[in-house]
């Protein structure tokens, strides 16, 4: 256990509290950068997919984990990001510009959609966004002229400053490109959290009434949260569509957004680590299941098994570890740091009673 000795207010909002912490993350980044030299192309593809899931998860985490608004419609914004990026690329816009523009477009449209959605909270917002996700699927089919509808679209080749980045021929370049996006998004996210807007997000999550009393413009804060969250998720969607090579309306069905929600809950709501841990679980669960099924002599895949295992895991996490994998890690770390003085009740949940805004 180390005791940080704070000598200025800046200590409270530093990106890294001390050198030890900084060197840990620097080591992690270095490991991530040299990863292509250590593993083969198959696992590199898996690692890339983990990172892409993490980007999309960070987007939803900003909304659900930081601002406390549930969205079951983020698959719609992933689709929006993906289609806008690909359509811009087909119109001749260079990839880097098209990619950034897709994030901006998704963010703006997300914020516009958020304005009426702001009047809703809790359950209503969840249902409205779920409807949005289902509508997105149908709208992609209806606008087949641009989106290719059910037949889908093929991702155009990516070229950055004349270098072709392709999933199959240059997997390491593709990985580094995604890693760059992940590092950028993570840094932006981390910085946002220590800016006034990020503090406002947390205040709105914890209590709208007290946030209002502190002078926070709730409507503006929620709109910003929705827009930023959609922008990040849109980037994730663009990466996912380009990575899969071909995509259609089915790729971004509403089940994808439910998977996103499950991912951040299993990882741990309200923490950046949670998005990454959840992404690891989402990406590797199918592999683990198929290996297990193979070991048990069941060659054929059982339909729905993956979703069911995910469901059971999720129920287990909500019942026994509401803070997700990252929360479990925090407990283990505290136990080790304080050993032997850690007590079980240190993480006890307060007893809660529900009060509603309803009169009848």
């Amino acid at each position, binding site marked *: 256990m180390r005791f940080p000795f704070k000598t200025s207010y800046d200590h409270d909002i530093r990106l890294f509290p001390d050198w030890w912490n900084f060197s840990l993350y620097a080591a992690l980044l270095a490991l991530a950068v040299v990863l292509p030299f250590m593993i083969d192309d198959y696992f590199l593809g898996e690692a890339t997919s983990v990172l892409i899931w993490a980007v999309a998860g960070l987007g939803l985490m900003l909304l659900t984990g930081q601002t406390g608004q549930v969205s079951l419609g983020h698959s719609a914004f992933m689709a929006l990001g993906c289609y806008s990026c690909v359509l811009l690329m087909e119109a001749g816009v260079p990839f880097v510009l098209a990619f950034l523009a897709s994030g901006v477009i998704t963010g703006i449209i997300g914020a516009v959609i958020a304005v009426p959605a702001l*009047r809703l909270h809790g359950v209503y917002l969840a249902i*409205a966004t779920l409807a949005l996700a289902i509508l997105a699927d149908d709208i992609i089919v209806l606008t087949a002229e641009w989106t290719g509808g059910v037949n889908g679209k093929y991702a155009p080749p990516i070229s950055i400053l004349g270098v072709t980045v392709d999933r199959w021929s240059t997997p390491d370049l593709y990985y580094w490109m995604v890693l760059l996006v992940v590092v950028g998004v993570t840094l932006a996210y981390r910085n946002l959290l220590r800016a006034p807007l990020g503090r406002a997000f947390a205040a709105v999550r914890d209590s709208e*009434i007290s946030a209002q009393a502190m002078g926070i413009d709730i409507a503006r804060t929620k709109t910003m949260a929705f827009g930023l969250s959609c922008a990040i998720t849109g980037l994730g969607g663009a990466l996912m569509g380009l990575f899969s090579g071909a995509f259609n309306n089915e790729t971004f069905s509403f089940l994808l957004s439910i998977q996103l929600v499950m991912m951040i809950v299993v990882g741990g709501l309200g923490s950046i680590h949670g998005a990454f841990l959840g992404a690891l679980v989402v990406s590797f669960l199918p592999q683990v299941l198929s290996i297990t099924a193979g070991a048990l002599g069941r060659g054929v895949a059982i339909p729905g098994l993956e979703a069911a295992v995910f469901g059971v895991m999720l129920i287990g996490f909500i019942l026994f570890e509401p803070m997700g994998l990252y929360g479990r890690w925090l407990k283990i770390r505290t136990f080790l740091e304080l050993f032997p003085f850690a007590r079980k009740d240190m993480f006890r949940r307060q007893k809660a009673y529900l009060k509603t805004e309803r009169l009848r």
Partner: protein
Amino acid sequence: MDVLQLLISGLANGCVYGLVALGFVLIYKATEAVNFAQGDFMMLGAFMTLGLVNPEYAGIPFWLALPLVFIIMGVLGYLLDLVVLRAVFGQSQTSVIILTIALGFVIRFAVGAIWGHEPQSLRSPLAFGDIRLGGVVLGVVDLAVILVTVILTLLLWQFFQRTKIGLAMQAASQNQMAAYYMGIPVKRVQGLVWALAGIVAAVAGILYASKGAIDPNAGFIGIKAFAAAVIGGFGSLPGALMGGLIVGVIEPFAARYFPPGWSQIAPYALLILVLVFRPHGLFAQVRAKKV
């Protein structure tokens, strides 16, 4: 005549949506949580009846199987509350939403593993014949669905308005702590309402299965039922039924008179419109609390 035909079939469909929506509203009224697995409950009830009644499985007479299914689904609902949902008692609605979505996946998998993924049809005594009324063909099953739904809605509505336990359920949802002070066994009341929702889901499932084949993905009509519940106003039982009817009627008409593809969108588009302009539904009983 064409219009009338569409209307009747739309109403019958709408009643099933309305019944599932009724399940949402029941749980919402009593626990302020939303059961995203209600559609899967309905599917489970349908398959359970199918497993008891159909000759290739247990082969029990239909009317004997009926109470059995109600009891099983009721107990299941109660146990679910006892084992799973009580652990998040008093926590935010978000955790219940996520929990019930996960439950839905588990139920869908279990049903698929037990009864298979192929569409099957229930040997229901309701599913026979048509009645011809001057050019309009009415399925007996459609009439039965409409009748049962209306009766059930009226019963439940009166249950919430008049009986002591119905009122206790409403009190428990509005302020758990205050309800405790008034001597309401809040947790047991919530368990009861989950049991009730299980039974309503079973009724909906049996009616749905009488209308056509079912498969484990039938639970996805729960999403349309959501649209119904929101359009009618969450928290209002007659509203849920009305919402269901509106959604049910819009679908066939949109399919008939709009370009293809629009009929699937229509219920959700209406849902979003209602949420934007009347967030508490068309038949809302809700007023915002003034602090």
